[in-house]
């Protein structure tokens, strides 16, 4: 069995990639994808820990709540993407681009 630290480092790497992506990229699609990346890195962690707990207490339902949480997160993420993409399409229809720098119009 792969030790838990492997999962941890992978998740950390994915999360950092996503975070930095949101910070430095200007393209909304890329930013949404980065957000997904962060969410899924967390999912990965949840599943990994869930498996670990289950392996320690075989025959019980230990760790099942972690996996349930993952399902919830995936549903919420899907909804979020649906809303985010539709906003983006509307935005594109107005602006003919998907640059996040143009999203601060309300300020002025």
């Amino acid at each position, binding site marked *: 069995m792969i030790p838990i630290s492997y999962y941890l480092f992978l998740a950390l790497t994915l999360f950092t990639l996503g975070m930095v992506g949101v910070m430095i990229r200007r393209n909304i699609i890329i930013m949404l994808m980065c957000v997904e990346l962060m969410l899924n890195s967390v999912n990965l962690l949840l599943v990994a820990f869930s498996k670990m707990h289950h392996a320690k207490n075989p025959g019980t339902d230990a760790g099942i709540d972690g996996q349930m949480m993952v399902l919830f997160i995936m549903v919420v993420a899907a909804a979020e993407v649906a809303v985010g993409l539709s906003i983006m399409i509307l935005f594109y229809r107005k602006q003919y681009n998907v640059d996040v720098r143009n999203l*601060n119009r309300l300020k002025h």
Partner: protein
Amino acid sequence: MEKYIWLILLLPLVGFFINGLGREKLSKQAIAFIASGLVLGSFILSILVFLEVPSGKDAQPLIFDAFYIFNLETLKVPFSVQIDALTSLFMLIITGVGFLIHVYSAGYMAEDKGFGRFFSYLNLFIFSMLLLVMGSNFLMMFFGWELVGLCSYLLIGFWYKKRDYVDAAKKAFVMNRIGDIGFLLAMFWIWKEFGTLQYTEVFAAVSTGQLTAFAVGGITLLLFLAATGKSAQIPLFTWLPDAMAGPTPVSALIHAATMVTAGIFMITRCNELFELASYTREIIAWVGILTALVTATIAIRQNDIKKVLAYSTVSQLGLMFAALGMGAYVAAVFHVLTHAFFKALLFLGAGSVIHGMDGEQDMTKMGGLKEKMPTTHITMLIACLAIAGIPPLSGFFSKDEMLLSMFLGNKVIYIIGFIVSVLTAFYMFRLYFMTFGGELREKEAKVHESPKVMTVPLIVLAILSATAGFIGIPAAFAKNAHKLNDFLAGVVSESGEAHAISLTTEFLLMGALLGSVIVVILLAKKMYTGKVDATSTGLMKVFENKWYVDEIYNALIVKPTVGIGNGFKKYVEKGGIVKAVAGVGTMSYYFSSKAKSVQTGNIGMYVLLMVIGVVAGLGIFFLGIL
């Protein structure tokens, strides 16, 4: 009695609501009919109460409960009425004279735009006064007390478009409020001492003598302060002459049937308390007699017909208070009764004169109205004779009884009272001869007699003024003929010493007074038939200017108060509060203008800051950095 007792209170209140709400819709006839009819209803029911009420020495008051105003562990105050001889007598005066004034007003106010408003106020006034006298505890009396003040404010300022009238109304209200503070504090004190506000319980506790002299003195003095406000005594009397700003029937109502008699009623109601407070009664007597003297001297130099009557009222009230101070409660109530008749008559008669002269109130422009207004003339003559104290008209009996009590109590007060009575005759007949004697001075005026609706109340009141005295014939004339004394015996703890005087002395006193009164009447006839006062000098100028009391109050109280108010306005309001409030706004605007530059709209920046925040948070949490 319990079937209709509440109706007496409710009928005028119903009238107030009907006329108040329907003042634009109802015709004038309907308004006058409803208002007068409902008060007449109350009057008829009051007569029934009067016939049934237990009177005499051992009479117990009847108490009718409706609901609790307060129902607490420490304070139970029911909304209930207490009917005894005193209450029923006042109910008769209020509703009876009130009814006549309502009828009269229908004629007097016929041309006025605010007809409905006027009658709704009048009805409210009757209701308030009934509440005041019928309540069975101090709180109910206080309700009536306050409502009466409100009604007087509304009615004095009835013609609210004139600045002076509104000022007079405000003055009446503020002066009354000063007195009301006394009532309120007295009520708290009574509650503290007895734990109840019911008259019967309080007076039962008083008679056990558990009260300290300090508490008795304090409570009675506070109650007397309240009485000076409502009944216009020194130092709070200046509002009553100014109350002439209201329509004349209002003056009649305030001066005769309601309002000013409240103080007398309250002290008589609490006579068991006042009996214990000899110092307070001393003060009451002196304040009363000084008020009587000061205002009587003012009255002899006034040229406004209503002002003369107003000061006359204050003066008569002063006499009543002096009598109260002597412990002669019945005499004071007797004078309230007779005074209600002849003073209402005088005011309504004066109103009739003013109406006939098309709004002229200045007596120097009148004269010779004898032929032109015969009914008014005859009734006014009766009223003047009654108030001057000519037997057998009513004023003679009541005034004689009051003066007798002063003679027995304090000779100095008696002498002042004697002088006041003589002055009364003088100023009343000065008014009479200036108005009705000689020739009309204002030649162009088209004088006319008032309509029937106004003269009939005058005639009724004239008959009452002439005959009301016979309910209190002094023992010197006939044994046991003092009906009022017997009637009120259960309410008032009258001392029996009233007759500890020889008949010779009593007749001597009466004769002396009567002689002096007749002399000054003849003097007034000589001085004022067809003539007016020359320009006054010296002491007369002081009298004409009302002893400069208003000016003194202005300089001592009003001006400093206004000055302090202006100071606060300038330095605290504008300099402090306004600046502080505006400063808060300016400050938040300033800080927000600085803070909003953080919001760049750059999402990357936001995320970076958020990450820094999260990292810093986690760092503090796990590593204890910072």
